[in-house]
């Protein structure tokens, strides 16, 4: 399923601080249940349909592990 906006999190880079989850205004993000190699519960996209592409998570991420992209309309 393709949604309008897409958040990608580099979970191996993530340190699980939760600042992106706190900053997200729509509840798109949450903690992953699994661990990464560092032993943290990384942030994960739990409700991808809710993302509005505001980039707040990207602004707050201290480890630069978030990429936000949006669907581009095909040029006619």
């Amino acid at each position, binding site marked *: 399923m393709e949604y309008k906006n897409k958040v990608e999190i580099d979970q191996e880079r993530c340190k699980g601080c*939760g600042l992106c989850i706190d900053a997200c205004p729509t509840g798109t993000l949450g903690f992953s249940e699994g661990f990464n190699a560092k032993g943290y519960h990384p942030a994960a996209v739990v409700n991808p349909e809710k993302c509005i592409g505001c980039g707040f998570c990207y*602004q707050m991420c201290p*480890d630069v592990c978030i990429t936000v992209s*949006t*669907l581009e309309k095909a040029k006619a």
Partner: protein
Amino acid sequence: MSYKIKFKGPESLSGKEFTYCPGCHHGIVHRLVAEVIDELGIREKTLMVAPVGCSVFAYEFFDVDGTVAPHGRAPAVATGMKRAMPENVVFTYQGDGDLAAIGTAEILHAANRGEKITTIFINNAIYGMTGGQMAPTTLLGMKTTTSPYGRSAENEGYPLHMAELLSNLPGVAYLARTKVNKPQDVLKTKKMIKKAFLAQIEGKGFGMVEVLSTCPTNWGIPPVEANKWLEENMVPEYPLGVYVDKVGDEK
């Protein structure tokens, strides 16, 4: 239909993983500085001076040439670099233990001489790397490992306000205090950092941005709560705002 990238890490970061604790604001400010370097297109001529402290490896994280100065002496080293190579852009990245404690003389005189350098000052009210000792910027009543009953004005003096101190000097072209605990503030901070770089590029003088920042590890509170603690305790003590602006707004 294809996805177009809206927000992605800046190119001026080397891509190396930061060595900071989870939730540390150093990472956010690193990203902002790198974004500003990207936007101004000055990566190839930018030189950085890293401090001593948590951000001692900052030169590893930026994709620019850089060095490390002895504790507190980053503005002095940056002065030399800028005077030897005036066409380059030189910035220092310092914490409060580095800039406000051992390096007070260097920053004061570099600012007073109006050196055309930019300083990013991270104020988290504590010594981070050495294990949470009291810094000159520690708040009154705040408990640290060297002020276990809380800082008292009688014993340890008052918190040092660097932005107010430097704002009286005529050599300063841009000076602001900001914070990065909310996405809106992060965007504001980016504009301020850009102006501090423009103050140097346009040859107007010294530019500094003081960023109030958290240290969840040594404050002993989780990252999200640390953001709230900063808002409730540090912002009343350290008023935010632009203190000196000789750069003007972009047209």
